[in-house]
């Protein structure tokens, strides 16, 4: 199938559009807050703000579009959220001028920030309030690079939609809200008033989204009247009808279903800058009934369905992730906003979830080759191999999508966390690799956690050697440790100390969001907020999970293994000698570094010596985090993913016992240290599978494969075997970079000629040339499992 002229043009326009900072939303929200001081409750204030935005923001319908609506006034005109965090003039300067991931900032935009936005929001933004409330020890750990904080400048998001919008219009949802209001227990429930405010806020948001659609309907009719081309005129009239229908009423056909989703998506990402972007989840199973009925009734063709999907893809690509402020730019420097469309998996009744639309979506992914949305293959043992092979044909082109998830294990993970089996089967993965019960869960990543840094502090008896400050607890001089067990005990103590700090901070931040920045629109969409009358940020969702994402398990394992092996078992050198070498970054002791790199068991080689160290460290992290309560009647769990944070975290960790030089990147996800896995992919996968993935909420494994490896039908078969075997061993996720190092080096030297090169970074794909040089180097260094 080839792209229609329309789609080719819209796609090219999307690729060509320059990301800019738009002040539209910031100005509207400021205008609203200037006038809205006073007696409003927090949820109603937020609902009226949402209404003000959707009633007044510019609406546009671009030439040839079938799916309409933009978050900003134009494609890639990216809003800011000053009520959460307001960009400084320096931030704008950096965004405008930085080499990677720039956002153009026009002089007028700068002037608006300088004259109006910055003065108004100074002292009012939630971010300032959050930092005010953090303790000194929290700030010390944060500044040392022990952890990052997701909720300080983006809203807790991390949720995905289920099938409800394909069954219910927003008028139906308003009925649900009305019923919930009617059933408030004013005699026994002390929160009845709060719930009333929340529910009324939700109803305001429902109307606001309907109004937003009506504005598009009106614009479409206006454009239709002026349109000379009869074909386009008819399309515009149809767009008008679609926007009249959805989201007020349930969709009747494929087109309406897609447009409905897109309005909902725009609502969520306009209300707040949720992290990660919202997404429709299992799009194939949601659309399949519309597809089947459309084909049977003769109102839809496969080509039309494909074109409509392609138009939706372009819409996703038009919305870059909102630019961040301050140091976290390094954490995740990308335009992608982590909307991950799921395909396949198992249905609610446990049956095979692959259908015709699944393959249609894979076609769209292959033909569109866009950065956004991201996509994943949810692979159950019940899904046919041809589904995985179809995906592998895309993966081997070097596009980096889709990534592959173990659908059966995800069900197991979710059920272990307390979800019902049905909710688990309707769940999947989102963002990078994190699991959730779609439409029913607030599963909130709260920040990355630098495990090797904690180990470094353990080796320094509580002191951060980079700054000389004592930020940990005194767990003893490691040179005095008589056994590896003592070292492990000290590490566990430091780990719990820092997790306590993070947990306490999270508790405060979660309450600040609930109190000051409720999200009534998102609450309409996620069960059981309407039934409970509680906001999404306040425990309204059926399931509420907080995650702390461990980073650097590979590096940590190789560090601990090296000490166990050389200091305690083989007695190659003493702890004191090792610490001395680390302090000098191995200067004058390259022999020790070589010994640590080359003559030490390493995680990733199916060697139980190192792998058993890994499983203990995994258990230590699990024990430190899993089961803690959050403030939303939910629970903490772990996942192991870095996005690009392993680069930032590495930059604060000095030379480490695995032979890593100071300030170099850490290992990413659950992958072995870059280059340490020397026994090929089967051994690496076996090593990684030795941790109990079922007790995580997601692990990220990167494997780089050179293109030749997947050549031909036989290559595809081998790929299928490798993935199926890893999943048989209960691996959670695997993604492939199918490129050779030579190509990558060429791209590094001559980015102009390789602008199209998309690589899998860490749970997502990005344009290779947009990555920092350090990240580029690291991807090149990742072990190439070339086989001949």
């Amino acid at each position: 199938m080839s792209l229609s002229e329309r789609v080719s043009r819209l796609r090219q326009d999307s690729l060509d559009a320059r990301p800019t900072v738009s002040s539209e939303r910031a100005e509207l929200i400021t205008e609203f807050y200037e006038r809205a001081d006073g007696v409003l409750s927090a949820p109603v204030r937020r609902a009226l703000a949402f209404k003000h935005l959707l009633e007044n923001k510019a609406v546009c319908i671009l030439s040839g579009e079938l799916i309409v609506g933009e978050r900003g006034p134009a494609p890639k005109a990216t809003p800011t959220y000053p009520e959460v965090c307001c960009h400084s003039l320096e931030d704008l300067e950096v965004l405008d001028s930085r080499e990677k991931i720039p956002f153009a900032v026009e002089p007028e935009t700068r002037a608006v920030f300088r004259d109006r936005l910055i003065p108004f929001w100074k002292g009012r933004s939630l971010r300032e309030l959050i930092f005010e409330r953090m303790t000194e020890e929290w700030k010390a750990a944060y500044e040392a690079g022990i952890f990052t904080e997701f909720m300080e400048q983006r809203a807790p998001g991390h949720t995905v939609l289920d099938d409800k919008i394909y069954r219910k219009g927003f008028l139906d949802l308003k009925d649900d809200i009305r019923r919930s209001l009617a059933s408030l227990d004013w005699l026994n429930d002390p929160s009845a008033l709060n719930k009333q405010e929340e529910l009324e806020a939700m109803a305001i948001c429902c109307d606001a989204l309907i109004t937003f659609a009506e504005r598009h309907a009106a614009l479409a009719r206006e454009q239709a009247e002026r349109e000379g081309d009869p074909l386009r005129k008819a399309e515009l009239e149809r767009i008008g009808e679609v926007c009249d229908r959805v989201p007020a009423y349930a969709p009747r056909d494929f087109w309406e279903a897609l447009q409905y989703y897109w309005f909902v998506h725009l609502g969520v990402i306009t209300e707040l800058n949720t992290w990660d972007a919202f997404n429709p989840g299992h799009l194939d199973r949601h659309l399949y009934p519309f597809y089947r009925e459309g084909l049977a009734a003769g109102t839809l063709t496969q080509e039309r369905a494909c074109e409509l999907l392609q138009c939706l893809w372009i819409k996703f690509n038009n919305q870059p992730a909102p630019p961040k402020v301050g140091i976290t730019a390094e954490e995740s420097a990308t335009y992608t906003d982590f909307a991950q469309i799921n395909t396949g998996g198992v249905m609610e009744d446990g049956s095979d979830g692959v259908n015709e639309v699944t393959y249609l979506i894979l076609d769209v992914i292959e033909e569109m080759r866009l950065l956004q949305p991201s996509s994943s293959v949810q692979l159950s043992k019940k899904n046919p191999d041809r589904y995985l092979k179809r995906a592998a044909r895309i993966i081997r082109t070097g596009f980096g999508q889709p990534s592959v998830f173990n659908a059966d294990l995800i069900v197991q993970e979710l059920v272990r966390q307390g979800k019902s089996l049905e909710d688990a089967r309707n769940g999947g993965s989102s963002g990078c690799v994190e699991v959730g019960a779609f439409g029913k869960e607030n599963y909130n990543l709260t920040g990355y956690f630098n495990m090797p840094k904690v180990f470094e502090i353990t080796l320094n008896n509580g002191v951060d050697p980079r700054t000389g400050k004592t930020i940990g607890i005194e767990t003893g001089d490691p040179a005095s440790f008589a056994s590896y067990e003592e070292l492990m005990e000290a590490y566990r103590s430091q780990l719990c100390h820092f997790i306590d700090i993070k947990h306490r901070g999270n508790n405060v931040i979660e309450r600040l969001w609930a109190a000051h920045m409720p999200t009534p629109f998102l609450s309409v969409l996620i069960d059981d907020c309407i039934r409970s009358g509680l906001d999404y940020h306040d425990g309204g969702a059926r399931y509420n999970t907080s995650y702390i994402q461990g980073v650097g398990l590979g590096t940590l394992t190789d560090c601990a293994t090296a000490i166990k092996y050389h200091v305690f078992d083989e007695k190659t050198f003493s702890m004191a000698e090792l610490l001395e070498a680390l302090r000098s970054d191995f200067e004058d002791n390259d022999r020790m570094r070589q010994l640590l790199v080359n003559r030490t068991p390493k995680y990733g080689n199916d060697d139980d010596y190192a792998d058993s160290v890994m499983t203990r460290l995994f258990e230590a992290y699990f024990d430190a985090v899993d089961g803690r309560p959050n403030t939303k009647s939910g629970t903490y769990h772990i996942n192991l993913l870095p996005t690009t944070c392993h680069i930032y975290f590495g930059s604060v960790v000095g030379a480490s016992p695995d032979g890593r030089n100071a300030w170099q990147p850490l290992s990413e996800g659950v992958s072995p240290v870059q280059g340490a896995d020397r026994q090929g992919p089967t051994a690496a996968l076996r090593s990684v599978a030795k941790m109990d993935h079922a007790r995580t909420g997601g692990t990220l494994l990167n494997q780089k494969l050179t293109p030749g490896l997947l050549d031909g039908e036989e290559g595809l078969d081998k790929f299928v075997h490798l993935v199926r075997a890893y999943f048989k061993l209960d691996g959670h996720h695997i993604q492939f970079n199918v490129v050779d190092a030579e190509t990558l080096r060429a791209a590094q030297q001559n980015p102009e000629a390789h602008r199209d090169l998309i690589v899998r970074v860490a749970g997502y794909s990005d344009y290779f040339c947009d990555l920092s040089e350090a990240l580029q180097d690291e991807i090149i260094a990742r072990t190439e499992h070339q086989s001949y």
Partner: protein
Amino acid sequence: MGSPSPIDRHLRRLRQDRLLSTGTIFDIKKFAIHDGPGVRTTVFFKGCPLGCWLCHNPESQSFEPELMIRDGRCTRCGDCVEACAQDAVSLNGDSVRIDRGRCDQCGACADVCVAEAIEVAGRDVTVAEVMVELEKDVVYYDESGGGVTVSGGEPFAQPDFLLELLKACKSRGIETAVDTCGHVAPHLFRSVAEHVDLFLYDLKVIDDERHREFTGVGVESIHENLRWLAETNRGVIVRFPLLPGVNDDEANIHSVGEFLSSLANRPRVDILPYHKAGADKYGRLDREPRLPDTEPPSEEEVAGVARRLSDFSLNVTVRGESL
């Protein structure tokens, strides 16, 4: 007399199972996906009775362990010079040199070389030790219909070790393949064959005289063993390494086609075009390759050879892929 210790019992069992039989190998390669069906683990035996020009694993030829030098890794620390009792090691330019005349292959220099610039190709292992590695990937064999491939060198050149290894695999339900040059005494070949699920059988040059020139041995047993495999309808894939200037001439291609089409059940023939991946290993061994300037054949040439062999009504594949 007390009862035997657990270790004694264990050793006795291993001896009974003949798992202590030892052999010399130079590599165990996992995720081998071009050495037979499915995902395999390939064990490379060291030592070969042939001395083929353009051998892409020169370290596989000698039966003795050999030192290999990787210049780029040398840090010039000098530990190897200290370690050598024969005064055979010296620093030289950016790297290290070994006087192969003095060297007694003891490996002391490699032991101390933490930068891994000096490596020993070849180590003695027991069947039990090999089985530990092979067992690790059973999940992949199960999933893919793969198994173990024994390659080399020439596996049959260490017949006892080969036999014990194959038996150990079969007793654990692991499928076996053997990659052989076929230069094996027929009675020996036949006695081992019952433990082999698939032969990967190299056929290079048909003419006896030219075969002697190119490999150092004649073709008689090679042809006989292949003919027997075909007649008894055992699993066999003939591998024809396409070596420019050695065996890619019209006459040899014709003879190969004729010979294979004369065999019972006409085995599949897989063309393996020459590649240069092994070329720099000669330098690491301080050896000069024969025909150092050989370039890989073009895809057109490969396709041409494949077509000519197909004309003999043979099932022809290139690098395992159907045409």
